[in-house]
């Protein structure tokens, strides 16, 4: 089992979270949408696996490289 940290590429806030902890993910699945510079920034699963932990919730502020969630695969 490997754990993959999914990080934010941008400073901004969490707009919508589309998946819940425990959900199975295929590579490229949309996990959440961030908002930054008035744009919707999709956060997609970099690998297939199980979403083991969500580290943020809607309206949270996020920094660059902040860990948003963990995927076990």
């Amino acid at each position: 089992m490997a754990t993959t940290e999914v990080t934010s590429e941008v400073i901004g806030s969490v707009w919508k979270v589309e998946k819940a902890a425990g959900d199975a993910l295929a590579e490229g699945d949309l996990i959440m949408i961030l908002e930054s510079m008035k744009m919707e920034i999709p956060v997609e699963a970099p690998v297939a696996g199980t979403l083991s932990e969500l580290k943020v919730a809607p309206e949270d502020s996020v920094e660059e490289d902040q860990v948003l969630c963990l995927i076990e695969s």
Partner: protein
Amino acid sequence: MPDRKLEDGKGLWADQIDELARRRAFTAEMGGPENVARQHRAGRLTVRERIESVTDKGSFREIGTLAGTGEYDDDLKLKKLTPATYVAGTARIEGRPVAIGGEDFTVRGGTSFGAQRRKGGQGGYIEDLAHHYKMPLINLIDGAGGSVTSAKRRGFVVFPGVDGFERSVGLLGEVPVISAVLGTAAGGPAGRAILSHFSVMVEGTSQIFAAGPPVVKRSLGQTISKEELGGPQVAVKKAGSIHNVAETEDEAFAQIRRFLAFMPQNVWELPPVLPAEDPVNRREEALLGIVPERRTRPYDMKKLISLVVDRDSAFEIRPAYGRAVITMLARLGGRPVGIVANNPMIYGGAMDADAARKQIHFMELCDTFHIPLVFLVDVPGFMVGLKAEQEGTLREGMRVVYTAGQLKVPTLTMVIRKCYGMAGMATCNKNDIDLKLAWPSGEWGSLPVEGGVAAAFRREIAAADDPKAREKELEDELRAYTSPFRTAEALGVEEVIDPRETRPLLCDYIALAEQRLKIGLGPRARAGVAP
């Protein structure tokens, strides 16, 4: 009288020819089998293997083959020759002449060859050759520069800048200069790597810094590995000191050849045009589906570029640095172009300090070598926020505007979506005839309606019964004026086009630009003080 040598049964000049062969053999041995094996074990090629790999087979003609330090016996006969730490000469790449040189790490770690400055390094013979023969220069860098031990050999210490980088600096306005960092580069060789038009380093086997870990330890007390201090994570991604990273030395050589294919031999020539194999009239249906109608959704600008330029022609410069802007060399109808495109995936394409630096260097590169620029615009403005202000975004951003305003090379501006404010100004050269074209998704102005409304109508919105509804009402009212067709009515942009017409139109204008490029040949004039 018969020649004595012939009587001996030997050919004319036989001893001298033997000595030449012996001296050449010493040079070919480089630092000796053990040092060569150590270089290979470190995952690196020797400088001679590198030159063979990057240039056309058999085209290398060495200069200074015999330079080195000789050891002589009591009869003043040569016992041994330690070759100079730099190998240089001329060669061909795709048949075109280049000057090429690099440190030989197997000889004294590639440290400067104190006895003869012109053999290697900054201000060396190879740079003079590139200057006088007006051909590109390729630096294969694998050395740490001067060594304090050379002061002992020389008897004095040299003053910085005397026999320094004068030639390296001058070359940047004359011929393409390419640097590959292929080992640990510090000091002079590191500086020289930066004084180039394109630079590449190799993942895992190369590092670059002003000074390495021992100096850092001594100066700041910090313990840090050379990879942490100057590997690609720092030098390419964070600092942008080196443009591109390659997985292997061979890939670095491929990148050098790729870059060079877009460049003229010097600033007095036009860049090379290839036969147009991809139809110039190709209308790409997929372009219609790229930009989402919902304004807040980003899209893949790199895919857009790949649909427009000649198939497989794009070569991205600095993909890992300043990612809010994409800079690529590519071809349209076989003709080299420089693509500057905003990346809506990164902060909506807002220009930050890194993106600004990247765009400036790329525009100057294209302007210097007569490569027309195509801007594919989707920029909401300069990046905002405390971090952006601390990084000097405003000043760096205005340097882009300044540089764009001085471009002499033809520019074509194609607005894909947003083009706002001063960052928008940096996407075209308004002093000239250059065209501003737009897709129907294009929108522009001094500032976007959202936010702009909140600022300009602050009191009116606050006084309304339903402030949110009033703000929306005002936004909708003003947005009607932002239609690109209304600006086109006023000839504020020259054309609004169907996205599928993008490639045929750009190919045609780039072909038309040739006459303008021809009359602009020569070195680029410099004026003014950059902000």
